[in-house]
């Protein structure tokens, strides 16, 4: 049984060692991603550049502008003196938001009438537009309630007091970094295994190997094992850096996480194996890997929430292993979720991984004749 397993695994480890460039890239890649997603990719919108056209010029209008800036979502970069100039500031990209306060702003407030403020929002960046809209409306509502309360006329009928759990500062690093573990594991297992198997095809060494009495299952396991170990090592590395650099600790059970990582590994290795049964050259394997990695990044909920995806795309997200692994990672790391909360995702991941691996192994065995 499994004749040649140790020989193949030992040989594979030599390959990895002999190719320091590939090894360095597979270690460096997680570091670069960690930096990009942890620091650079900040989806929090702050200090939106704002142009102001104030026709009122009295304390009340000044106060509105100050309160706007005090939210820290806005930063006044320009004051203009015409409707056209206000529009032009947005067209030229100097400002994302234009605020126009009419000449009768203060008077209307004093008279107790409804004072109007015009807000132009650059919709070309949907994130900014959305944030500007909601914060401005929220600010105005707040100010209106304050004014009414000052007159002693009302108490607020419904008072929502949001409290953000698990990530009170709403830092995007907390959201991205745990997900990164899944992505890195996917890249290492899928891409490296696919490449290592296809390389043997390309160089004819696979044929030479198949003339020997090596067991086919042993051949496959022997080739996958070193990459599984490498994947586990990188997982630990990223989890450590997540805690050491970004201060994101694991709230839940490390044991549970440790038990579920290998489940995901099977899925990733299975995908790599699957690619190797289609690709004839390393270049093809590389492209095919991207075909799998791209949806894993974009459709798994890593960057964009799955809930907002169109009905046509949504089913695709359910057959991406990273989708479930991400939910597990974020659950365990951020929310301290345990087995009772995550058994569903874990089961689906296991089924998906088993399915992929079964098909891949069957195809692989058949291909080898």
């Amino acid at each position, binding site marked *: 049984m499994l*004749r*040649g397993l*140790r*020989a*193949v695994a*030992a*040989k594979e480890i*030599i*390959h990895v060692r*002999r*190719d320091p460039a590939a090894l360095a890239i597979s270690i460096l890649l997680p570091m670069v991603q960690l930096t990009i997603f942890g620091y650079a990719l900040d989806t929090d919108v702050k200090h939106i550049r704002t142009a102001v056209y104030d026709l009122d010029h009295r304390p009340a209008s000044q106060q509105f502008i100050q309160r706007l800036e005090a939210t820290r979502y806005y930063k006044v970069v320009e004051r203009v003196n015409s409707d056209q100039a206000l529009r032009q500031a947005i067209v030229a990209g100097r400002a994302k938001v234009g605020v126009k306060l009419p000449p009768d702003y203060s008077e209307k407030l004093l008279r107790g009438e409804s004072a109007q403020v015009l807000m132009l929002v650059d919709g070309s960046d949907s994130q900014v537009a959305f944030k500007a809209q909601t914060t401005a409306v929220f600010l105005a509502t707040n100010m209106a309630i304050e004014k009414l309360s000052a007159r002693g006329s009302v108490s607020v009928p419904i008072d929502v007091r949001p409290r953000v759990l698990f990530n009170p500062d709403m830092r995007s690093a907390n959201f991205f970094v745990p997900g990164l573990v899944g992505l890195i594991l996917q890249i290492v297992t899928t891409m490296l295994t696919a490449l290592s198997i296809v390389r043997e095809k390309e*160089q*004819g*060494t696979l*044929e*030479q*190997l*198949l*003339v*020997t*009495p*090596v067991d086919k299952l042993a051949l496959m396991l022997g080739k996958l094992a070193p990459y599984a170990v490498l994947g586990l090592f990188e997982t630990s590395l990223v989890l450590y850096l997540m805690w050491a650099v970004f201060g994101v600790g694991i709230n839940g059970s490390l044991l549970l996480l440790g038990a579920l990582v290998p489940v995901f590994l099977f899925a990733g290795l299975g995908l790599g194996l699957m690619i190797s049964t289609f690709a004839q050259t390393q270049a093809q394997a590389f492209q095919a890997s991207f075909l799998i990695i791209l949806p894993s990044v974009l459709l798994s909920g890593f960057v964009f929430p799955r809930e907002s995806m169109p009905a046509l795309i949504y089913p695709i997200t359910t057959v991406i292993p990273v989708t479930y692994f991400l939910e597990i990672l974020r659950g365990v790391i951020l929310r301290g979720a345990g087995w009772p909360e995550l058994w569903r995702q874990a089961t689906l991941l296991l089924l998906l991984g088993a399915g992929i691996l079964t098909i891949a192994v069957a195809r692989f065995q058949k291909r080898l*004749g």
Partner: protein
Amino acid sequence: MSFDVPDASIFGFLGPNGSGKSTVIRMLCGLLAPTSGEATLEGIDVVRHPDRVKPKIGYMSQQFSLYRDLTVEENLTFYGSVYGLSGERFATRKKAVMDVVGIAGQQSKRAGTLSGGWKQRLALACALIHEPQILFLDEPTAGIDPVARRSLWDLLFDLSAQGTTLFVTTHYMDEAERCTHIGYIYLARLIALGRPAELKARQDVTPPDTRRIELVTDQAPAALRILKGLPGVLSATFFGEALHLLTSESLDPDAIRSALDAAGMGVTNIREMSPNLEDVFVTLTQGLEQTGRA
């Protein structure tokens, strides 16, 4: 096609490019399942029990297919352990194959950095590590220099003398002449099978009413044109400085000499000859092409 390869023979498997040589080898090695037919190696059915055949065969493919980033020793160790060798037995075998191919002293070189001849020797060493009874060699000497080629064949003769059966494909006629048995395939059909001497004596190669003549002249190209027009000359072709003719029995060699003399060309030597293997294969192939067209 159907053929037997005697134990300890050197079986030369020849045929034009694309005629199916490699396919036959791959089927015999259990790499490819045949659509029909059967083959037994050492009494074992290849189609039904490829796994039982594999420990008994060695295979050296056309292109270098060992691990280039592994050293000579690591390649040997890898193949040794894949064949289930270990401990003392493995050490003995490793030393034995390294002595046979003379690669000792280069153990720590990466396989990819070896020259063509040494690569082939290493490939041979790896294919021999488990003492196979049958060794398949697919164009083992393609692309290596004549000296390396000669020494590789010396190795093959040694192996054959020790009882290993060799199954070799080649395009080199001088290598074919060295084989004890030959099979020639054309369009996936075996059209000649036997010892080299038997093939040369075949009647369809040199029919009873014809003879083969070798002729040396100082103006071979011009002579070839004249000879091709001479009645009774069935075919004429260059062979180095000489011309090889297939003539009908009735054409007197002296008539050929005088025909060339008349054209002012001196004939240095003219003699009757037996066909070489190239003549055999060319004649047989042309014969088939003509019947195919007819």
